[in-house]
């Protein structure tokens, strides 16, 4: 009994500044520290966030990361440029193709290699397929985190079709390594082209299906509309990019403004939000899937029917695979490119690519020779987490999940 009374005394105390409250007990408000993660189902990997709470409101959050740090940038300095391509798969393992694309583009800029036209179209098609996969994955998991479970099954059903398509394309579903410096590993087969055309017909009605699940779902709307608002100015200052930045109304899409691949030959629009809340970021991703379908369709129609898929620069690009097995010189070329690498000119470049999460950039410093002297990966997930404390302030614990969900973080890319 005495123990209980002691507790009551700590919970109720008198405010000395106001003597008239002496008879009225005041509820003690004390900050609570909550560790969210490192193993939390909604953190999409191993991420820890220490939340300072006032009741259920977040007053401050400290992000603790690095649990998945593998030293990829250090590894890059010890390998040749070709050897680094499989490492890029493991950055954002949900969307390996786009990482390959971003890296190969950066090295091509360094080496001044021009990619043949058909390869540019193939690259753009696969990149846009990867964007759809990324957005489907995001939509499913984000809805699951917020409490709408059904969408997950529908988006993963359609994602599976595309992953099987990747499997047929390059033999792997997730760690693809299909892009090469100067082109792509292999051309489409007739069956792949038929399948992607079938998908183009199949997919647009499915987007409307997901929208039906969410757009009139009161829980989804209550959890996203007006949650985690960030103004355009702040979003830019924090370096946010991709749908997270465009949700705040900034028209910044590298596919349009520093166009690459076959994007300049395609007509597409860049959806831009108004309010900068989680709902706008969701809406942008839905619209981007529709735009991706348009881009893929145009690329399929415009693409030259045949042609080389690898640039013919023997000092940099790999020889065709069939020649490697039959021709001694090609085998030597392949062997030397992988073991010694090509001789890169001294200099430094930065090349940013619009991945589905945001601007994925590679900053490469070369001092000549086969290895990069320094390779820095500008990963959108890492930079988005920098804005987390600012965006989470004043929201509820449950909204923390919505916020880092709306960045679409993948810890492999965040920690590198």
């Amino acid at each position, binding site marked *: 009994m005495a123990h209980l009374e002691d507790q009551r005394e700590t919970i109720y105390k008198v405010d000395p500044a106001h003597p008239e409250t002496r008879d009225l007990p005041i509820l003690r408000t004390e900050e609570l520290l909550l560790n969210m993660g490192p193993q939390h189902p909604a953190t999409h990997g191993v991420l820890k966030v220490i939340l300072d709470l006032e009741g259920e409101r977040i007053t401050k959050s400290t992000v603790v990361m690095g649990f998945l740090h593998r030293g990829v940038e*250090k590894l890059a300095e010890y390998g040749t440029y070709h050897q680094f391509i499989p490492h890029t798969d493991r950055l954002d393992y949900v969307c390996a193709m786009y990482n390959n694309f971003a890296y190969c583009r950066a090295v091509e800029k360094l080496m001044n290699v021009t990619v043949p036209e058909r390869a540019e179209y193939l690259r753009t098609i696969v990149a846009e397929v990867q964007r759809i996969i990324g957005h489907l994955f995001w939509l499913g998991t984000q809805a699951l985190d917020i409490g709408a479970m059904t969408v997950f099954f529908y988006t993963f059903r359609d994602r599976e079709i595309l992953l099987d398509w990747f499997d047929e394309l390059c033999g792997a579903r997730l760690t693809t390594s299909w892009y090469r410096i100067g082109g792509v590993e292999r051309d489409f087969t007739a069956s792949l082209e038929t399948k992607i055309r079938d998908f183009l017909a199949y997919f647009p009605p499915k987007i409307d299906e997901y929208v039906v699940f969410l757009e009139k779902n009161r829980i989804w709307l209550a959890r996203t509309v007006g949650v985690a608002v960030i103004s355009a100015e702040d979003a830019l*200052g924090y370096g946010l990019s991709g749908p997270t930045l465009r949700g705040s109304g900034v028209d910044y899409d590298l596919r349009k403004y520093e166009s690459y691949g076959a994007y300049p030959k395609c007509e597409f629009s860049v959806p831009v939000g108004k309010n900068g809340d989680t709902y706008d970021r969701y809406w942008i991703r839905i619209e981007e899937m529709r735009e991706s379908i348009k881009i893929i369709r145009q690329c399929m129609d415009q693409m030259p029917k045949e042609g080389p898929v690898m640039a013919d620069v023997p000092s940099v690009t790999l020889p065709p695979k069939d020649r490697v097995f039959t021709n001694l010189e090609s085998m030597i070329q392949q062997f030397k490119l992988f073991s010694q690498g090509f001789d890169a000119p001294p200099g430094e470049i930065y090349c940013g690519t619009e991945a589905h999460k945001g601007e994925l*950039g590679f*900053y490469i410093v070369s001092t000549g020779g086969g290895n990069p002297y320094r390779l820095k990966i500008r990963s959108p997930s890492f930079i988005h987490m920098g804005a987390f404390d600012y965006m989470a302030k004043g929201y509820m614990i449950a909204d923390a999940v919505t916020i880092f969900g709306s960045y679409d973080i993948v810890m492999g890319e965040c920690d590198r």
Partner: protein
Amino acid sequence: MHPLAEAIQARFPDGFLSAQEWRGDLAVTVKREALHAIGRFLKDDPAMACDYIVLVSSVDWPDEEERFEVVYEVYSIRHRHRIRVKTRVPEHDCYVDSLTDIWPGANFMEREVFDMMGIRFNNHPDMRRILMPDDFPEGYPLRKDFPLQGKGWRDTFDFLNEGAAS
């Protein structure tokens, strides 16, 4: 010289060192003391208007007198131009002024530079390691004198000898 580099040189004749253009990228090398002022100029000047911070990085040149190079890359949404600003730091005085007050996004990226290369940032709100553990004892992993396999911290761990218990 690129007009943007000329504008920086005209405004900061003492702080500006050189400008390079290669493969379409503009890089400007400035003195460390002028970095913060130039950052402020890049953000606030209407002709520059570099409101978007792209990247903060660092390069280690162990053979040179000023060993480290800190690299900021910024972009202007209004004018659609990119500028890379670089500055050099000697090893014995490894400090740069933080640009977190200009672009808040520099916070995490500068912490990463500190974590990986050991360059400290003055006036940074939270100068701690970010990817490596806080008590990581071996130094800074992306420096060139740090071996790829690490310095053997793992070998000092105590492991339970499960075979001995039975």
